[in-house]
């Protein structure tokens, strides 16, 4: 049932079937012995288990950040409490610290005099907001890319002989007024202007 690696990693050979009580006890066992334990409802379980051919990367979760930034605990103790290798925790701490320091400087916060727990909580909140904003910008960017592509296709269509023939037919029957060339150019300029506006907004949102 348990897979034990030679470096200290532990896995389960497969998910454990448990009664409600056993499930609660399993969760409580980890909550009592480790920090930042998060329970996630899933649709399916992973198929690949601890084995000699595969390395497993465990993404850090927000719940772990307060422990990573906790001044009072040495790296070994933090690693133990998070169920992670010391090297991974040391590396993550080293990666997280410049961002944290940068934020305190920009936000005019004081790491020496302020309550560290409050400072870390605010930093996590800031990071969450920052990530959400980035996600939103990326989403908007994708929609804008789609619109630009559409407009470029329209430009090509308005430049095509097919469209010209269609407009000339309409003009012959008096369905449209004015010169066909002027109409085509006007429409193409309209599309190009819209592309220009989208690109300008994209640049602004990237700043």
């Amino acid at each position: 049932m348990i897979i034990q690696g030679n470096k200290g990693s532990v896995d389960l050979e497969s998910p454990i079937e448990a009664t409600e009580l056993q499930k609660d006890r399993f969760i409580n066992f980890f909550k009592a012995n480790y920090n930042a334990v998060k329970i996630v409802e899933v649709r399916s379980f992973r198929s690949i288990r601890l084995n000699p051919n595969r390395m497993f990367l465990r993404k850090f979760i927000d719940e772990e950040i307060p422990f990573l930034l906790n001044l009072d605990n040495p790296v070994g103790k933090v690693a133990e409490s998070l169920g992670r290798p010391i090297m991974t925790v040391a590396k993550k701490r080293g990666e997280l610290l410049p961002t944290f320091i940068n934020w305190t400087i920009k936000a005019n916060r004081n790491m020496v005099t302020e309550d560290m727990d409050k400072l870390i909580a605010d930093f996590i909140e800031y990071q969450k907001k920052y990530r959400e904003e980035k996600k939103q910008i990326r989403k908007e960017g994708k929609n804008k890319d789609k619109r630009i592509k559409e407009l470029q296709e329209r430009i090509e269509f308005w430049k095509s002989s097919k469209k010209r023939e269609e407009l000339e037919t309409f003009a012959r029957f008096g369905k449209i007024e004015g010169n066909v060339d002027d109409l085509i150019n006007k429409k193409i300029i309209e599309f190009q202007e819209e592309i220009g506006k989208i690109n300008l907004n994209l640049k602004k949102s990237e700043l």
Partner: protein
Amino acid sequence: MIINVKDNWVDFDKPVRMTERQIKDFKKFIQEEFNTSEIKYVKEKEPNREGIEVHQKKWEAWEMVALFSGEDTPTLEKKLNRNSMSIQMMGQKIVFEVLAWAKKRGRAIPPTQKDIEDFLGENQ
């Protein structure tokens, strides 16, 4: 750590690193709760460090000050001519130690070069 649950099933999201004591406690828990002591031992895959040479370059006070600049690792890599691993390892060590020291001594963060020199003087 993430524990995945679905109906009456529980699982680790990814393998968990445990100390000898934690492994012992976990085995005991599983034995008591699920009445099984089955253990499968495997060799773990290690990161490929072949060809990587380690040269330790002494850290200067001004470099330590740079670790408090808030600049990201790629910028610091260029500025200090060091690799990301060296910066992250030193960063996590020195920043915590200097912060604890600054709190004790009532010094400001980010520290000046003088602060770092004082810190090193007291801690070497």
